[in-house]
C-alpha cells in the first residue's frame, strides 16, 4: 500500500472527460415499467402510469446506450463503463485493493425527463481524496456524471463516490 494515492497521475486526471453515452429515446412504456418496479407492490402515482414525465431516478441507459464513445485517447471504447471510468486509460496506477464499495451518490436535478427525450451522459473525473481507515489508507474516487436532454438542458448532475481499500 502506498503512503499516498495522491500521486501526480491522479491529480492530473481531475476534470478530464472520460466518456459520452447517448440514450435511446425514452418511451412511455419505459417510464411506466420503471415506476411499477420501484413502487411495487404499491401502484405508482398516476402521472407515471400515464407517463407524463419520468421519475427523477429513472435511468434511460438501462439495458445499454444507443451510442457510447470513450473520450480518452488511450481507450478504444470497446468496454462500456456504465457507472465508472476507465482508470487505466487515465494513467492511474493499478493499485491492488481488497475491497471496492459504492460510497454513495449526490444528485442535483434539473429539468424532468419525458417520453421522447434523448439523454446524453458525459462522465468526468471529480475530486479524489484519501483517508486513513481501520484497514489502511482508503481511496475515494469521485465520478461526475452530467445528463442533458436533446435541447441541451441539464437533467441531472451526479457525483458518485467509490471507496477502495
Amino acid at each position: 500500500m502506498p503512503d499516498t494515492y495522491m500521486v501526480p497521475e491522479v491529480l492530473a486526471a481531475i476534470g478530464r472527460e472520460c466518456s459520452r453515452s447517448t440514450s435511446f429515446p425514452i418511451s412511455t412504456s419505459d417510464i411506466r415499467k420503471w415506476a411499477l418496479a420501484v413502487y411495487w407492490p404499491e401502484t405508482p402515482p398516476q402521472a407515471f402510469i400515464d407517463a407524463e414525465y419520468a421519475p427523477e431516478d429513472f435511468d434511460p441507459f438501462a439495458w445499454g446506450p444507443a451510442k457510447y464513445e470513450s473520450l480518452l485517447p488511450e481507450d478504444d471504447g470497446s468496454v462500456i463503463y456504465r457507472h465508472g471510468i476507465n482508470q487505466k486509460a487515465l494513467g492511474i496506477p493499478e493499485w491492488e485493493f481488497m475491497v471496492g464499495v459504492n460510497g454513495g451518490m449526490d444528485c442535483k436535478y434539473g429539468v424532468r425527463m419525458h417520453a421522447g427525450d434523448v439523454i446524453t451522459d458525459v462522465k468526468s473525473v471529480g475530486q479524489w481524496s484519501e483517508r486513513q481507515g481501520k484497514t489502511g489508507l482508503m481511496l475515494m474516487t469521485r465520478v461526475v456524471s452530467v445528463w442533458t436532454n436533446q435541447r441541451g438542458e441539464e437533467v441531472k448532475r451526479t457525483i458518485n463516490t467509490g471507496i477502495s481499500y
Partner: protein
Amino acid sequence: MSNISEAMQAAVGTVTGRTTSYPISESDIRKWALAVYWPGQPPAMFIDPAAAAKTVHGGIVAPEEFNPFAWIAPAHEAFIKNAGKLENNNPDNPEIALGMSGPGLKFQLNGGMSVEYGVRMRAGDVITSESSVGEYSEREGRLGLMLFSRGISTWTNQKGEMVKRTTGTLIRY
C-alpha cells in the same frame, strides 16, 4: 368415472375476459430481444431500424413470442361475474374463476402451450387479448386418470388482424 362435470362441459367456448395493451414501443421490443438473446446480441431486425427496414417487414417487428401485456395493461374486462376466490396453486382455480366447482384433483402441472401465429406485432400496435374456455379431455396415465383442460387466448391488433392464438393445457390428476 369422469372428472368432467356437465357444468364444465357447458362452459367450453365461454369468453372470459378481454385485455387491451398499451401501444408497443420500440424500446419494449429492444429490451425483450436483449433479454431473450442474452448474453448474445439480438438480430439487427429487432434493434436497428435501418436494418429492419430492409427486411420484408419494412421496419422493426417484435419477436413472435413478445408479450405486450407484461407489467400493466390499461384495460381489462372480466365477463364472468360471481366467480369464486382464487387461491395460490389451487388446482381448481380454472373452474373457480368460472364460478363453478372444480373436479377437486390434488395435483396440477403445466401441460405446455401450442401457438399459431398471424401477422407480426410492430411498434405502435395496440393488442387485444380475448380469453376463452377450451376443450376438456381425459386420459388414463401413469398417474391415474388425468384431466386435460385448455385455455385459449386470441390476440388481435388494432386493425382486427389475428396476431396469435395460444392454447394452454393444464394437466390435473
